[in-house]
């Protein structure tokens, strides 16, 4: 067994060990708790990077717990199966986790409950890494529960705020139902194949009604984690109510795990030829997510809720990439996941710095902060440009890859959806920036605000620099990272063969050829210019004083407001309604699977 193989569990064990050791030695290391977390995450990151070389050559590294390797083609043991797709998501978790812990060291200053906070955060990160590396369906379910419970508790970190408790309760109920869907789904898959190892299940999967319902329940359950419409209701509440470093982790890493699992189910579990309709359904889900998230962004009052709804829209974007399923689209989805993790956590941290420094939670309470918090202003503006997919930012890369793939698949209308997503994102973010950083101070708190401490600005700046680096090395990132992630998802037989037999078929070790457009190539800037013009226009319309009644723009905006009001009323705030939509969405997902059996 090569040394890199046996290192895989260390990536999980180091943060898990930190979480358990912290309460024991906590009172002796009171001021070094963040340092301890940072050190353990760095170790975990180094372990992951040491696995990077074989993984990014198309191999799947398999580690069998207690050496229970498969015998006679039966996999009874639990495996860690690390391929490029899971590895990338685990790496994203570590990066966002590091930034979040450094930020928390500044953010939590002057608050109590540090020990609980760091223990829960380390458990959350452990669960996410474990889920991404695990190759066993039930093991994944256990990791899912580990990070979910940590996330519920972190959402309710401020029990004195009614909103945190309310958000945590809604989060708990909706995601528990999702977990039951996953549990029933994997039981049905066991009934179908007599196995729980992902590769074994995929090998023996028979497209019977039971098996297909099982896959549908799994996808529905994981879609709740990925916060796709109509499973998204928990997300804005939880993201807005959690402490800011935790919101960054949720948006950066936790919902990416949902995307990871959905893609795994669609490509690895379901045999090729049976998943086309499901993928089309996912494109529909993605379009709905973009629309709902985008429109909801435009009338939110709370600062962090705007960013949360933007996450819903961006997840829709990613799931469209998965739904298209061509190598280019999958590479685009993988790179866009990395981009969104970096930029959205940076934005959450930036606006969180505003919230912390001014104690203002809604747009109406801030204003005129550009002069008082110039660095935060620059960072948030840069993040907005990247999020909208401007050239030379990381967002441009994923956007152009997904658009190209849509054109190749003959779905040209999807480029319109992509441009629409950019317009909504830019408009919502410009509205936020305008109301927060320009104009007059509206509260006394905002008037006396000053720049956030360096320890909070550093991780934001680091994430933004990372985003820029990705944007400038588009060709290299696509060739060395995106293409291999797409390769890992598409080569189902290679995955099964490497986990079950341990052999590497040589033909499986070549990445698909994907050519991203050069960011400097002006002929591809058309969509970005459209987004810029549309986004600025829409932001202007949402900020200017109302048109006089009877004119054409007034009538148009009035009609648009009615749609947005209907969407707003859909988010009733009653958790049982959310449970209903959760079940309806999952039931609807089973339909395409049953038709194309």
């Amino acid at each position, binding site marked *: 067994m090569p040394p890199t193989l046996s290192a895989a569990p260390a990536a999980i064990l180091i943060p898990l060990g930190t979480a358990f050791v912290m309460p024991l030695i906590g009172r002796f290391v009171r001021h070094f708790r963040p340092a301890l977390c940072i050190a353990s995450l760095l170790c975990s990151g180094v372990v992951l990077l040491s696995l990077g070389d074989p993984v990014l050559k198309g191999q799947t590294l398999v580690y069998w717990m207690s050496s229970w390797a498969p015998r006679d083609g039966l996999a*009874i043991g639990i495996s860690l199966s690390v391929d490029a797709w899971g590895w990338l998501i685990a790496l994203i978790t570590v990066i966002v986790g590091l930034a979040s812990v450094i930020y928390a060291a500044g953010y939590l200053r002057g608050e109590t409950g540090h020990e609980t906070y760091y223990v829960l955060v380390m458990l959350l990160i452990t669960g996410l890494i474990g889920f991404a590396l695990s190759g066993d369906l*039930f093991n994944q379910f*256990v990791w899912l*529960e580990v990070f979910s*419970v940590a996330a*519920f*508790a972190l959402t*309710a970190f401020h*029990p004195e705020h*009614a*909103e945190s*408790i*309310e*958000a*945590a*309760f*809604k989060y*708990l*109920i909706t995601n*528990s*139902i999702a*977990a*039951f869907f996953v*549990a*029933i789904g994997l*039981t049905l898959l*066991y*009934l179908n194949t007599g196995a*729980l190892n992902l590769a074994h299940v995929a090998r023996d999967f028979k497209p019977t009604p039971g098996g297909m319902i099982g896959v549908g329940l799994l996808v529905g359950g994981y879609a709740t984690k990925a916060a796709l419409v109509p499973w998204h209701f928990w997300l*804005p*509440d939880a993201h*807005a*109510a959690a402490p800011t470093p935790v919101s960054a982790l949720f948006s950066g890493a936790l919902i990416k795990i949902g995307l990871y699992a959905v893609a795994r189910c669609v490509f690895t579990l379901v045999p090729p030829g049976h998943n086309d309709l499901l993928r089309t359904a996912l494109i529909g889900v993605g379009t709905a997510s973009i629309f709902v998230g985008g429109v909801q962004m435009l*009338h*939110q009052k709370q600062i962090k809720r705007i960013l949360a709804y933007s996450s819903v829209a961006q997840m829709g974007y990613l799931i469209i990439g998965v739904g298209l399923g061509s190598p280019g689209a999958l590479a685009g989805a993988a790179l866009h996941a990395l981009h969104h993790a970096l930029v959205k956590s940076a934005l959450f941290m930036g606006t969180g710095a505003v919230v912390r420094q001014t104690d203002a939670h809604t747009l109406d309470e801030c204003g005129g902060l550009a002069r008082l918090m110039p660095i935060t202003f620059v960072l948030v503006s840069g993040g907005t440009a990247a999020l909208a997919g401007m050239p030379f930012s990381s967002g441009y890369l994923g956007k152009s890859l997904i658009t190209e793939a849509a054109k190749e698949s003959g779905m040209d209308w999807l480029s319109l959806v992509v441009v629409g997503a950019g317009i909504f994102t830019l408009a919502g973010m410009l509205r936020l920036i305008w109301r927060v950083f320009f104009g007059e101070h509206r509260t006394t708190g905002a008037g006396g605000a000053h720049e956030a401490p360096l320890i909070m600005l550093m991780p934001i700046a680091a994430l933004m620099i990372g985003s820029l680096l990705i944007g400038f090395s588009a060709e290299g990132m696509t060739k060395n990272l995106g293409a291999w992630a797409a390769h890992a998802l598409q080569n189902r037989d290679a995955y099964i063969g490497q986990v079950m037999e341990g052999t590497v078929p040589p033909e499986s070790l070549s990445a698909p050829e994907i050519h991203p457009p050069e960011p400097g190539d002006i002929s591809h800037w058309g969509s970005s210019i459209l987004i810029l013009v549309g986004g600025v226009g829409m932001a202007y319309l949402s900020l200017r004083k109302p048109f006089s009644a009877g004119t054409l723009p007034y009538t148009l905006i009035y009609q648009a407001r009615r749609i947005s009001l209907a969407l*707003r*009323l859909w*988010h*009733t*705030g*009653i*958790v*049982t309604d959310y*449970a*209903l939509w959760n*079940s309806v969405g999952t039931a609807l997902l089973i339909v395409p699977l049953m038709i194309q059996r």
Partner: protein
Amino acid sequence: MFFLNFVAAILLFLIGLYGLIRARNLVRILLNLGVMESSTYLMLVALGYRSGATAPIFYEPKIVPGITPTVDPIMQALALTSIVIGVVTLALALSLIIHLARHYRTLDVRRIRRLRG
């Protein structure tokens, strides 16, 4: 026998889901969640059950691997794990309900909706 258990588990799951969606009281939501949870246990245990089989304790001389029919221990292990997970979620949810009752002075789910829209 397995089929009967299976149908019962699915019915139980749907009853729990229906009850949860119709529930108005927070504690009742949790009870329905418990019903859904029990259905997954029933499903797991029923799946591992073999009629007339014994426990797979292979150091007992009377039980020979591959000859004596034994039940599937994996499913029972999974059921145990699920029960532990269920307890954790239940405990957390109950503590959240206590806090909610303090803040909102009600357990009616229709009146705990400060976060909406």
